[in-house]
């Protein structure tokens, strides 16, 4: 049974469709990355799953329970939503104690969580004196209070130093290995790549990828950048390689060949046979960032959405004239 499943889930805010006919299944264990540009619907989806907002259409289940009855599953769900939120004048301990009381948990659980997130010893200080990283740790602690089967973390490493990031990554892995599902929403692609087993990618509220991380990485393509020993041989080099059947693009002083590493030796031989010595031959594999940007576009999501809306409006105006 998936930990989260949605069917044609849609949420509109006026004319804006934040989540658009979303159908997905999130596995019941492991670390799952939720990715998408700004305005792609990640936060709206998380809020729907937590019962903070209601969908306009469609259905969803969390831990097998319908989202129309969040009381049936919230005791098994922990969340850090859009940054930590606490009473600034209260200590870390009392903030957690307040949330523990709300969930009917014993005070001893607060001690356990403070230990897990490394705030033991600082727990009696007011949250107002905490750095962003410490608040983030406290936010993760609040999400862990109920020892959840499903942990939803929005930008969990925000504000953490490199050591803290590694620590949180290890914590997420430990939780996943213990059988929990950890759903991580983040803009840090390197974090998602390092931590996640499964990936969900949204764009304009629509699902554009849902599957294991390795499936996405196999979509990565490669190319080979070559450069002739003498710059005036760049054009002839492009011609002979193209004549041999490869697709080429001429760059500034180099040639990009659409080929993977297996063709490197043949490309070198082709150039050599034409009397051109290569001073550079580099096999370049697409990065996770390249794959992500090719899927979602290279423009800020909200700006792209605004431009699209503007274009549509202009089109409508034009059509009526």
């Amino acid at each position: 049974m998936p930990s989260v499943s949605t069917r044609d889930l849609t949420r509109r805010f006026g004319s804006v469709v934040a989540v658009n006919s979303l159908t997905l299944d999130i596995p019941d264990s492991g670390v799952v990355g939720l990715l998408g540009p700004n305005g792609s619907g990640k936060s709206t989806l998380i809020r729907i799953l937590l019962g903070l907002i209601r969908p306009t259409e469609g259905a969803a289940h969390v831990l097998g329970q319908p989202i129309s009855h969040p009381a049936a599953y919230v005791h098994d769900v922990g969340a850090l939503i859009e940054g930590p939120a606490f009473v600034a004048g209260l200590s870390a301990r009392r903030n957690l104690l307040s949330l523990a009381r709300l969930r009917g948990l014993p005070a001893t659980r607060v001690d356990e969580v403070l230990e897990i997130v490394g705030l033991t010893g600082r727990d009696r200080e007011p949250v107002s004196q905490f750095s962003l990283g410490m608040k983030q740790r406290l936010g993760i602690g609040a999400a862990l209070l109920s020892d959840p089967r499903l942990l939803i973390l929005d930008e969990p490493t925000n504000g953490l130093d490199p050591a803290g990031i590694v620590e949180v990554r290890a914590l997420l892995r430990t939780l996943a290995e213990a059988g929990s599902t950890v759903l991580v929403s983040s803009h840090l692609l390197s974090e998602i790549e390092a931590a996640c087993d499964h990936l969900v990618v949204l764009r304009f509220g629509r699902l554009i990828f849902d599957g294991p991380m390795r499936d996405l990485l196999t979509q990565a393509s490669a190319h080979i950048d070559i450069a002739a020993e003498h710059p005036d041989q760049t054009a002839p080099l492009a011609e002979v390689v193209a004549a041999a059947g490869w697709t080429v693009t001429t760059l500034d002083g180099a040639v990009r060949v659409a080929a993977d590493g297996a063709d490197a030796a043949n490309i070198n031989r082709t150039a050599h046979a034409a009397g051109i010595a290569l001073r550079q031959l580099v096999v370049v594999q697409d990065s996770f960032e390249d794959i992500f940007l090719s899927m979602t576009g290279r423009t800020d999501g909200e700006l792209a959405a605004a431009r699209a809306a503007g274009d549509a409006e202009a089109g409508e105006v034009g059509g009526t004239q």
Partner: protein
Amino acid sequence: MMNTLRSEVVRLWRPRLMIGWLGLTAAAAVLINMVMFQLVGEGGSTPPAGPGVAFPDAATLASNEGLIVGLSAAASMFGVITLAFWATATASDTSSGLIRLLVAAQPHRWRLIAGKTLALTLLTALVTTVATAVNIAAANALAPLADLSTDAWGTDLAQVAGEAWLNTFATLVVWRVIGLALAVLTRSAAAAVSIGVGYVLVVESVITAAASDLAEWLPGSTLSALAAGGNAVIDYGTAAALALGYVVVGLGLASVVLTRRDITD
């Protein structure tokens, strides 16, 4: 519901917050007694009631109610302080984003309102007790300076003080509910306090001046009458019934709005 109550008490029990609320209430009790006894001591005529206060005459101060009459005289002042405190405590849940965690942990949102209401009721009882104690101490200290006879003050003291405490408590509970409802509706402490205080000090006075027939239905007049155990305009039973109506409407409105609203903050 007990979980939400216990959670609220942990969050509300902050030294600065409580000292501020109790301190302001105590200061208001001292202030009203100073003004009341000074006016009587100077022998001038009693000034007319203004927004938030109604000054008793010398005969009332010398009666067995004189010891605690400051509570009802400044009922609206205590009420505004209570409204501001509760509006701030409620709206800060939204402005800080804490409401996301609360609703995610307790999806029965009406229980959050109920727990907060119970917690506020407990703390309002504490504040009423402090106001009563400070008022009694201030009256005892200031009466000799006004050369006022206090021979009648001991008569039925427990009953008089008990009734004053109960009426003040009931009044503050209604003000508290109004503050909570305004905060839920506006999601802003500043807006809720501004609306509440502005209403008490300005709007109700204007409405009363323009349409005096309406005065007995308005919150300020109703709650002043409730605090005083009834007055010439509104009898005690009517004031209590109207106050109950304000509580039901206020809590009902807050519950419906919080239950139906998307938590996007």
